[in-house]
């Protein structure tokens, strides 16, 4: 049993911290204020340091960083409040293409991703299929050597900055829903693609994307025809650790700064018992969230596929984030009504910001209900329901 990073891992963490310390002041606020949780400046600076391919083997031009180093990199960016959504999504697709992509896809797309030239977005969710993602209705129809895509995707975050959408489409409506799906890599500048902004409670911009007779060659297909579900499972296994733990880390940092700073009209908030109780509860939940995350990293480092550890981590950390941010707003009190960064709001607006953001963390990447269902069935071995009867 060991709960410490190795000396090499700590060295890399310090390198990341130095990078973050060298960013212009207000980078975090500026990136958030654009609504797009991606900064090309930061992205290119990361590319310069080779970090976009840090996890890639040295023989493939990467840095051969181990899973703990990668987790640390994520965590330090989260702590500093610098969003790297764009990179995380693109890297996830790159890793998936490395396994299931064609040689052409691997050679054309992966270097552009890892070099920091392009971003990608995920086209899974649709207006009528969120939790039930396999119910996707966007169609891909054979057209000679290629395909024609028609439909709509929802929550295609980064689509307005991305070059491709990694798109789940129905190619066979006559088989069980999981078995009639195929994955495509669709260029967002193709004719017939439209991107409409969707703004959110947390201030982030996401998008609805529309596909009207969009033609792609068969080389845009990723994986087998009707094998899209399997491709998506590969991609899901690469999903980063739950983002909620990173948000909790960021929130607690901001909250602790706020709590130990004396205000003009009195002692530091941390002197108040309800502030201390709230911080203690939240900090404990943060520790547990981080341990759950590091355990997933540890499994990855041993090439063990997580079983239900991911669901436990996702459920716990996102619910903890909601609880913590809501209570912290409460202990800030009426002044928490004041919001925004650089406006004189308490904790420069970050406590209130994380509160508004937190609600989505129990929704995306599998709602808390989905996670509880997985834990109930696969972790606890509870039976599946056959039917629900009256009043029960």
């Amino acid at each position: 049993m060991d709960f410490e990073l190795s000396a090499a891992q700590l060295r890399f963490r310090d390198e990341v911290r130095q990078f973050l310390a060298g960013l212009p002041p207000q980078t975090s606020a500026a990136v958030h204020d654009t609504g797009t949780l991606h900064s090309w400046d930061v992205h290119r600076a990361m590319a310069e340091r080779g970090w976009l391919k840090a996890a890639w083997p040295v023989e493939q031009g990467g840095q051969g960083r181990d899973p703990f180093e990668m987790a640390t990199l994520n965590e330090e960016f989260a702590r500093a409040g610098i969003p790297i959504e764009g990179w995380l999504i693109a890297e996830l697709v790159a890793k998936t293409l490395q396994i299931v992509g064609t040689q052409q896809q691997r050679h054309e797309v992966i270097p552009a991703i890892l070099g920091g030239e392009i971003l990608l977005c995920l086209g899974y969710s649709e207006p009528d299929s969120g939790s039930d993602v396999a119910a996707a209705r966007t169609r891909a129809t054979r057209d000679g050597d290629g395909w024609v895509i028609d439909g709509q995707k929802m929550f295609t975050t980064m689509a307005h900055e991305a070059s491709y959408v990694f798109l789940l489409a129905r190619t066979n409506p006559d088989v069980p829903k999981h078995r009639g799906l195929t994955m495509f890599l669709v260029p967002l500048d193709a004719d017939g693609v439209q991107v409409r902004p969707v703004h959110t409670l947390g201030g982030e911009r996401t998008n609805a994307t529309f596909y009207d007779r969009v033609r792609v060659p068969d080389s845009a297909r990723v994986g087998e025809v009707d094998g899209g579900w399997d491709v998506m499972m590969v991609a899901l296994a690469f999903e980063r650790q739950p983002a909620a733990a990173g948000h909790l880390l960021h929130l607690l940092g901001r909250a602790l700064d706020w709590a130990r700073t004396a205000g003009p009209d009195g002692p530091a908030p941390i002197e108040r018992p309800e502030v201390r109780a709230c911080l203690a509860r939240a900090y404990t939940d943060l520790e547990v969230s981080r341990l759950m995350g590091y355990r997933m990293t540890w499994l990855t480092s041993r090439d063990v596929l997580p079983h239900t550890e991911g669901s436990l981590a996702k459920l716990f950390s996102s619910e903890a984030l909601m609880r913590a941010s809501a209570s912290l707003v409460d202990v800030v009190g009426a002044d928490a009504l004041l919001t925004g960064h650089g406006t004189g709001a308490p904790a420069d607006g970050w406590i209130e910001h994380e509160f508004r953001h937190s609600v989505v963390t129990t929704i995306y990447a599998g709602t808390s209900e989905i996670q509880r269902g997985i834990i109930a069935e696969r972790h606890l071995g509870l039976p599946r329901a056959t039917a629900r009867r009256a009043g029960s």
Partner: protein
Amino acid sequence: MMDFALSSEQLDLRAGLTALFADHSTPARVRAAEPLGFDPALWAVLGGFGFPHLAGSRDGAPARLADLAVAAQDAGACLASAPLVETLVATRLLDRLGAAAGDDLVTFSPRPAVAGVARTVPWAAVADRVIACDGDRILIAGPGHDVERPKQTLAGLAIGHADLTGATVLAEGPAAVSAFAEARADWQVLTAAALAGVAAAGLHLGVEYAKTRHQFGQPIGAFQALAHQLADAAALVDGAQLLVQEAAWAGDTGSPRRHGLAAMAAAFAGRAARQATDRGLHAHGGYGYTLEYDIQLYFRRAKALSLLSGGESAAVDAVVALALADTDSDSDHDTGRR
């Protein structure tokens, strides 16, 4: 004799306001009034309806808080972008102090001033005058008073910080302290009513969405886990409505329990509104997080009003005092406990 029914006057008031808000406080109008959160056209219509003057006494009899609570609840349910609660409280306070209420927009600071400034006062950014308590004095500032307007707030409400330098003294000494306590209790009851309205409407949005949204081959509201979360919220919403009614009645009858019940109602209605809108938003899945759906308006308003009222911690002293007073009064009969 206990009676939980609304009076026919209250039912008429509700019907009138429901119609008014359906025309003049649509979600589109609520959005258009953001970020400040004030809709002058709606305020003018409410003025035509008689607000806030109907909070004053007529023929010597003060307006009933229970009626005003009906109005506040309806306004809350439609997220009315208008200073209904605070102007009603200010009107009642001026009435109580024997001061004439003019046609100015007069708002009320529910928290006492600190260092001569009433901070985070709802509607101060658009009010002509601000009433606040500073020590043992009740002051009224403006017009032309110095108000700092924050750029952005969680949910409109035209928040402002009012500098009370040079404000007129309306009352001072024990009479002022006591009048402020009554006004604060009025504010708690009416804010609780608004929160109960927000809670009920937010829950309703979640329930209606859950009835129509299908996943895995059935409406999501048929999934027990989601349905039970909404049922728990429904119990809180129901409790908040009952508590608001009782607290308003206690205010109207001058019950010695009125201050404790007012604090209780504000805290409980805040809890109900936060949970109902939170679960209502969650029921919407990813759509609940987008600005295009209305539930986020309710979610933000619930938290904002709850923060203004100070939440549960602000109610502790008044509720504990009520508990002790009730216990003493019950044991006057020397029952004891066996």
